[in-house]
């Protein structure tokens, strides 16, 4: 791989990669069983440099902000490279948000440029808030020939005017300059725009590749959204600076994911617990369908593999012992990685016993993504691993049981939250990032997580949901006041599973919780995306404690509720 200590910016490092491995494949893009694109590093450069030229000709300047709103595909990475080449700041936006939310974050980021897929752009232009869009130049990919682009330009032809011009020189950046603004939450009104610097990414990449190197020939299967900092790192920057290839699949249907493993001989892949679980279910079902004698044979081979890989993974032996299983995964898979939410140890053990090690990790965008990761020396199913090299992790204010808040310090920790010094000061204290997660180190230096201190939930699909982000859905319901809490924030529980949200309703004096009110609440709840919904409500009969500026003192209210009511008081919605 490239020696990243020699580079000051993502653009410089990526540019060097394009020149170092011109003939290697860097990108494969498939849709179901069709291959859309297969690019070498040279071809990637030939597409990206004219785009950089055209952006600069259109007024793109060092420090200009450009948002990308796309599903995982080759044009995402080509556009990102062009932005970095021009010295810009990338704002990767979540394509799963609603158009109104996307417009809100676009406004907050003050992105002048927007690069967006046609179907997402169409939804944005149909949104009532569309008129608020401030981006000066919008490039739309894959628009049908006769589509009305509402003033936007076609990505595919934008570079044409610049095709005869010489490629622009790369714009130098300092390590401490912002590279990306990544939103970790805040669609409900207080956006958390994590400003991640070039140094954050370069150092994170050095640390991750020390544990899990890439090299030319490696195929990384990128299915987590590239707008998340983790896929940006392991599904773009990391593979590229090592001359490896990224495989994109434009559908997340489980059957096509399964088919992609053998078709593209995948080496590594990162996924969320829900997808890992789905793979486990599929395999268990196939095992259960085997005739008894074959099943007994399989169980014996799995037991033999478990015994032979106790100290470390031995992929060659595992492939010999369990050829059918490994054939289904393409025969070249070295490891899967999982993070973003809690993964059951039994699932991790299931795969490890088959000779498919799953590296369980933990992190957050504010820390430059990964904080801890398992290294299989030996395999552990019950922890989220050890801190990455170069990162300091400690437990702040531990209780008698050793459990306290996980705090992180190091070169991968973000610079600040965009335009929010107050929240930055609450989150990064004396150089330590306070994660809001509760954990404890065991005697071998592995971190174990036990729940959350902060008022939020994480779904098994790795979605972080903050109550403040969904509360405005209930604006106008017929009560005196209301508030949304994570159930485990109201009643602290030492668990990472079964997290859900509770709506606390305080009716007007003399008013009751009527069926009409609950019907209204349920109807509004349905307007939220399914994973953001509140699961239950709680009736409360006292005034909420408020600040001088009439904001709810959430911590104090939670304390009052905790004292007065038990978890059983909630009513399912």
């Amino acid at each position: 791989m490239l020696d990243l200590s020699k580079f000051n910016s993502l653009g410089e490092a990526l540019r060097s990669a394009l020149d170092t491995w011109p003939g290697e494949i860097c990108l494969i893009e498939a849709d179901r069983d069709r291959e859309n694109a297969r690019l070498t590093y040279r071809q990637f450069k030939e597409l990206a440099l004219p785009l950089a030229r055209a952006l600069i000709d259109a007024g793109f300047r060092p420090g200009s902000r450009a948002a990308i709103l796309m599903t995982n595909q080759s044009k995402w990475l080509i556009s990102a490279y062009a932005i970095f080449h021009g010295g810009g700041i990338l704002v990767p936006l979540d394509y799963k948000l609603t158009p109104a939310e996307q417009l809100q974050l676009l406004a907050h980021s003050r992105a002048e440029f927007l690069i967006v897929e046609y179907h997402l752009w169409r939804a944005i232009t149909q949104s009532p808030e569309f008129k608020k869009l401030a981006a000066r130049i919008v490039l739309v990919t894959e628009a049908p020939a006769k589509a009305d682009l509402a003033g936007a330009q076609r990505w595919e032809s934008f570079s044409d005017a610049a095709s005869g011009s010489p490629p622009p020189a790369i714009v130098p950046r300092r390590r401490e300059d912002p590279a990306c603004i990544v939103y970790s939450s805040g669609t409900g009104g207080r956006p958390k725009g994590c400003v991640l610097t070039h140094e954050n990414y370069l150092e994170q990449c050095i640390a991750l590749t020390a544990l899990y190197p890439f090299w030319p020939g490696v195929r990384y299967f990128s299915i987590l959204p590239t707008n998340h900092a983790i896929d940006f790192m392991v599904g773009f920057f990391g593979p590229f600076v090592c001359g490896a290839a990224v495989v994109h699949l434009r559908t997340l249907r489980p059957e096509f994911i399964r088919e992609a493993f053998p078709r593209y001989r995948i080496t590594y892949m990162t996924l969320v617990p829900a997808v890992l679980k789905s793979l486990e279910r599929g395999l268990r079902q196939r095992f259960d369908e085997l005739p008894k004698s074959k099943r007994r044979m399989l169980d014996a081979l799995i037991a033999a593999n478990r015994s032979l890989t106790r100290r470390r993974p031995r992929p060659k032996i595992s492939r010999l012992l369990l050829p059918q299983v490994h054939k289904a995964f393409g025969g070249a898979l070295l490891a899967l990685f999982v993070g973003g939410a809690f993964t059951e140890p039994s699932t991790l053990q299931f795969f490890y016993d088959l000779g498919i090690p799953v590296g369980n990790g933990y992190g957050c965008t504010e820390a430059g993504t990964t904080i801890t990761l398992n290294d299989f020396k030996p395999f552990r199913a019950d922890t989220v691993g050890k801190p990455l090299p170069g990162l300091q992790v400690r437990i702040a204010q531990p209780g008698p049981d050793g459990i306290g808040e996980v705090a992180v310090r190091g070169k991968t920790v973000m610079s600040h939250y965009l335009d929010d010094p107050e929240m930055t000061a609450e989150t990064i204290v004396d150089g330590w990032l306070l994660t809001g997660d509760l954990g404890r180190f065991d005697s071998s230096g592995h971190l174990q997580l036990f729940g959350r201190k902060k008022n939020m939930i994480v779904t098994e699909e790795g979605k972080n949901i903050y109550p403040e982000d969904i509360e405005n859905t209930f604006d106008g319901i017929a009560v005196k006041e209301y508030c949304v809490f994570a159930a485990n924030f109201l009643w602290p529980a030492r668990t990472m599973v079964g997290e859900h949200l509770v709506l606390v309703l305080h009716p007007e004096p003399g008013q009751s919780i009527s069926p009409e009110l609950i019907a209204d609440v349920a109807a509004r709840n349905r307007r939220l995306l399914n994973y953001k919904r509140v699961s239950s409500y709680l009736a409360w009969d006292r005034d909420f404690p408020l600040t001088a500026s009439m904001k709810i003192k959430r911590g104090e209210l939670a304390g009052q509720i905790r004292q007065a009511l038990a978890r059983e008081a909630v009513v399912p919605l």
Partner: protein
Amino acid sequence: MTTLDKTTEQILQLAADHFQVPRASLQPGDDFFKKLGINSLQALDLLTRLEQHFRIELPDYELQGVSDFRTLAERIQSRL
């Protein structure tokens, strides 16, 4: 020409078969995530079943933000 009502009815029947629940328990306006207790991955599974039945191809994004059977039927109907 299949009407939207017929398409909706077929979707409800296929969903009932796929997730093994009584057909009568499902209504067009139902939130299928909640009613069937499924996550978005399992919903993608259903989409595959519907594609086979209607002989169409539905990109994943067609399901984005859709959580009730009727809207799903509209998305499918527009591609028939």
